[in-house]
């Protein structure tokens, strides 16, 4: 039963962050609308749980995003899943350790892999004959996405992590007296 509850509330949470991601891209002005709440949430989940479940979560949220996209079906899911997989590997073998700067690096890396894979697949499927001049604008947009998503992740990391530090401090200092 506990598993059913976890699955139900987990699914609800994923739908909520997807709606939030879509909604904030409408509501926020440029360049803030480039913030990728999905990747930010997934990276925080990865850092705090270290669980490979994050890959299935990526598939689920990007499946919903895929339903709203007009580019060939599968590009978002594939790019995002590969990005999360590589991030998981990087967290395990390269970055190691839960620190704010490792979370920052991991988020930037995830966005970079996601966008590179996405652009390559899009060009490969010939749906968008991107003129050479457009790559500059696109790079700026991706850079904004990388910067703002990393900042958001750090902000959320602080919100999650700092209270737990105080809690631990409190337990060590008073609770065991």
């Amino acid at each position: 039963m506990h598993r059913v509850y976890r699955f139900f509330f987990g699914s609800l949470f994923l739908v909520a962050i997807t709606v939030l991601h879509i909604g904030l891209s409408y509501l926020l002005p440029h360049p803030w609308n480039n913030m990728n709440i999905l990747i930010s949430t997934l990276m925080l989940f990865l850092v705090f749980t270290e669980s490979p479940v994050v890959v299935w979560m990526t598939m689920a949220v990007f499946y919903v995003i895929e339903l709203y996209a007009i580019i060939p079906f599968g590009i978002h899911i594939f790019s995002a899943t590969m990005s999360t997989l590589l991030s998981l590997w990087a967290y395990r073998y390269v970055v190691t350790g839960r620190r704010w700067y490792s979370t920052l690096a991991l988020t930037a890396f995830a966005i970079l892999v996601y966008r590179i894979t996405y652009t390559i697949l899009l060009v490969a499927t010939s749906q968008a004959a991107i003129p050479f001049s457009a790559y500059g604008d696109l790079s700026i947009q991706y850079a904004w996405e990388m910067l703002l998503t990393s900042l958001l992740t750090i902000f959320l990391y602080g919100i999650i992590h700092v209270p737990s530090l105080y809690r631990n401090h409190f337990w060590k200092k008073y609770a065991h007296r």
Partner: protein
Amino acid sequence: MYLKSKTLIAYCVVIFLIIFLHFSGWIRSFESLIRDIVQPGSQVLYEWSVAISDEQFSNPEELAAAYKKLKEAYTRNQIDAARLALITRENAELREQLLFFDKNTSAHVGANVIGKSVDPLSNTILIDKGEQDYVVVNDPVVAAEGVLIGRITMVQEKQATVRLINDNQSKVGATLINRERSIGLVEGGFGISVQMTFIPQNESVTIGDLVVTSGLSDDMPRGLLIGTVESVEKQPYQPFQMAIISPAVDLDRLLIVSVLTRE
């Protein structure tokens, strides 16, 4: 190895299975269910975003100036409407006399805009009408009083996606209302711009010229307003000139549109 090759293969198999099931149409009802779950929240946020970005006045003087401007525009429109009524009557009589073949494009369906693309490479909107309402791919979509905003690019049972004219994949045959009635192609760019290309170099294009559909593109009626010429780019060594077009409606603030259907 932390990520075993078996696990990697499993992930890839699942991805390709999802893609296969999507294209086979076997999970269509599940996808509709997901859309139905996500849509209400997305629609509310989209409507908020339009409401927030609506024009606001910081002082009474601004409001008074806007009112005066609107009143002038209204008077001009009244005059235009009277002239249009006369021209419409004349036109109908002439068509009858010439036994002119009239393409039946009057069938239409009104739709609410329930979302827009979150993709940096595309400019699309989502509407709440789909196959159930006889909407099919390539149907033109208009806003306000017949201003072309795009074409249907993807249809689901109860929803459809509209590729806006400023999308980089959008191409519409157009005519300039100038002396030569220049014909060209209205294309979207990667930013927010819309441009008209392939205008012969020797034809005169001036700022403010109206751009309408030429009817030369498939399934696109002629005479739908697209916008006005904002600037002209002309190079002496090139056979064609290009005009930057300002769309007649704000493509970021669409709430209600109409799809010109065939049934």
